[in-house]
């Protein structure tokens, strides 16, 4: 159940570093959409996210000769996207000279599927849903990396600038919250 396509990306990355424009275009096709979606978890400003994606790819291209080997391209791209986005936030804050809060991770949940389910399960889902809306941005972020990007703990450490134990604890507590919500029979 691994994703075979991603395993090709280190090769693509190397071809890109060696000057292949085709590889650059392939990397864009593979990641632009994903990074856009990822960026929108931090802000609703689609233009700003697009700008960041463009900045990221342009910088990669211009500095491609200085890039090192990357074995996990996805994590590299996600971290770059997060950094690009946060740097832009900082720049804009400075520019407008207003005290803006740091961008936080947000999630829009998909509509409920129309499966026929038992009352008990339906009730559990409702409670989980409500709980997920009130979890902290960091908890949301860690679930996103784990559930959507399927990152390992080490990879999440890199993404969130946290050590291994903190990531474990954060994820464990967050899942604990879900469990409590599901079990909470009112």
């Amino acid at each position, binding site marked *: 159940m691994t994703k075979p396509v991603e395993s090709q990306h280190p090769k693509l990355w190397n071809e890109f570093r060696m000057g292949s424009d085709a590889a650059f275009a392939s990397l864009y096709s593979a990641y632009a959409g994903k990074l856009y979606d990822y960026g929108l978890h931090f802000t609703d400003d689609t233009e700003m996210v697009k700008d960041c994606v463009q900045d990221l790819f342009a910088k990669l291209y211009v500095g491609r000769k200085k890039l090192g080997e990357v074995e996990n391209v996805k994590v590299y791209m996600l971290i*770059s996207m997060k950094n690009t986005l946060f740097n832009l936030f900082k720049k804009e804050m400075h520019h407008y000279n207003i005290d803006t809060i740091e961008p936080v991770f947000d999630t829009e949940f998909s509509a409920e599927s129309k499966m026929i389910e038992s009352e008990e399960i339906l009730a559990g889902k409702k409670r989980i849903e409500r709980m997920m809306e009130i979890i902290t941005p960091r908890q949301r972020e860690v679930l996103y990396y784990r559930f959507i990007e399927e990152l390992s703990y080490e990879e999440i450490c890199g993404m969130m600038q946290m050590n291994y134990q903190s990531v474990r604890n954060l994820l464990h507590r967050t899942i604990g919250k879900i469990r409590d919500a599901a079990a909470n029979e009112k």
Partner: protein
Amino acid sequence: MKNNGGDVSTNRKKACPFNVFNKYGMENKKTYTLTDLLEDEDFIAFANRPEPEGEAKWRQLIGAGKMSEKDFRLAMFCVSKFGNAPRNPTDDELSGMWAGVQKKIRMSRAARWRSIFVATSVAAACVAVAAGLVFIRLQPSDSDREAMLMPPKITEVPLPPTASEDIRIVFADNNCIALKEKTARILYNDQGVAEINSQTIVPAGEQSESSKETGYNQVIVPAGRHSFLELSDGTRIWLNASSRLVYPPVFKTSAREVYLEGEAYVEVNSDKNRPFVVKTGMMEVTATGTTFNVAAYTDEEVQWVVLVAGAVSVQTGSTATLLSPSQMLSLSGGAASLNTVNVEKYISWRDGIYIYSNEKLARILNRLSHYYGIAVSCEPKAGELLFTGKLDMKNDPERVLNGFSKTAPVKCKQENGAYIIYYINP
């Protein structure tokens, strides 16, 4: 920034303290809760990409009373809640963003140029050129993405759509200059500005800094003409008749690369850090500073390189051959052969002399038709005849062709503007 090492799957295994199914494929715990499932990466992978096989595996736990249906469904729900709502950009947005990437890349190049120019106090006019970049195509289709970052690869630069009897120079912006003269002398300075037959050419369209770096120019020499080029790096190239050379007006800092169809005599200006590469349909000739002759006519099945002085490496498929002076590497039908030859024979065309020894008439005629720009054909039996000799191609074609009939049982006739060589039974 950390470059995550190692294969993703092994990373996962190491990282995950939980695995409902351990490495023996057996359950390693008595019962499984919602928490266990949500902490199990195999389960998450399954929830994101449910397959019947995986489903059976997980449901088997329910059947065995080790997991509740409710926990299973809720765990699936938790994962899909996150996974089902990606906000993907539309294709138009993706294309628009890609155009933006291009623009940013060019702007940063322009900025780099600008700072170099300012630092070295070179004419402010150059800054104006760099700042006046024009972006032509802003709405590429999906499939255009690869093509538009740089023009096509040097080996894939298209010919102009129309044929011509003139020598033509095509610039990166597709502006074309046609010359009626018998020969052309094209000199590029190190800024990539061309001087053609002693006239400096300023193309009508934009020849921006960025297009100079990324675009290609080409010279197309029709039959019966030839050209001499001096490229921006000082390398001198004599182009034989019916040939085409594709090259950048200014070479990149990392490599020098040209593409050849037809025949060229190349005197590479030495630059140890930037090898000079001549690409043809069958081979790549790499040199740092040396003189050689390459023949790669697309309508001939044999392509060859003769080294005059220095050293070249010839890459054909996956093998590389190093040539010493006076050696010839010829390629035919995928097979390569290395011989020591009389170099003069292969480079005398520059002086309008064609030396041949034990050569089939058909091949000689093919070269003559390139050289003179005339149609020549021969009966198969005549084509097999072998000739040795020397032709002065400054003579008119009729005289040269009639020369054959003096030494061999052939006769030359002109029909409908084409020359035909007949075999006569002696």
